[in-house]
């Protein structure tokens, strides 16, 4: 049973560029959440996708956008990159629906470096 997978593993970009990160959820999961983990800090919630729509969003600017596909995989897009966007980007999958949050399972992350 494959767990959560993310690609690429590492990425180097320059300021002002755009980047797309990809995530495939754990088998049977339909919900994908994205987190940003800056060096030495805990993960911060960016947004969550369920049924191909953004269900909830954290305190991140509109430069951060996403998409969920019919097979439940997801993309995170960041436009106009800033140096401060350098971080580990984590994807987590879970079972959706409403009400009680289900346990989130994390992928290995994508390390983004902005120069």
């Amino acid at each position, binding site marked *: 049973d494959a767990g959560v997978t993310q690609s690429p593993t590492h990425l180097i970009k320059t300021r002002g560029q755009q980047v797309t990160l990809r995530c495939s959820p754990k088998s049977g999961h339909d919900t994908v959440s994205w987190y940003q983990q800056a060096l030495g800090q805990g993960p911060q*919630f960016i947004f969550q996708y369920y049924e191909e729509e953004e269900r909830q969003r954290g305190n991140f600017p509109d430069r951060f956008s996403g998409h969920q596909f019919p097979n439940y995989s997801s993309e995170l897009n960041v436009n106009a990159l800033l140096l401060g966007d350098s971080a580990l980007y984590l994807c987590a999958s879970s079972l959706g629906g409403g009400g009680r949050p289900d*346990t989130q399972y*994390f992928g290995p992350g994508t390390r983004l470096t902005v120069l």
Partner: protein
Amino acid sequence: AQSVTQLDSQVPVFEEAPVELRCNYSSSVSVYLFWYVQYPNQGLQLLLKYLSGSTLVKGINGFEAEFNKSQTSFHLRKPSVHISDTAEYFCAVSYYNNNDMRFGAGTRLTVKP
């Protein structure tokens, strides 16, 4: 506002000693609590979770945690640590009808021989 506080940023301990990693949360509503472990250059692995029921929760690798509603705490414990337990540990909280999981800043556990 929802928040999670991990009271110790670093915890050094000798091998085979007991350890407690402290976590407090702020909430006036029902919460769901989690502990995750992160090894260097890896993602987060779920150690254990409290959703409801018994306040003492047992997880993987010999870890356990106790949910204390009156003290709004969810401390992680292990009676005897191994070198391989050296990692970053994160406490996290979720709330009913809220998909925004909040994490603490993490506790670096270093097990020394």
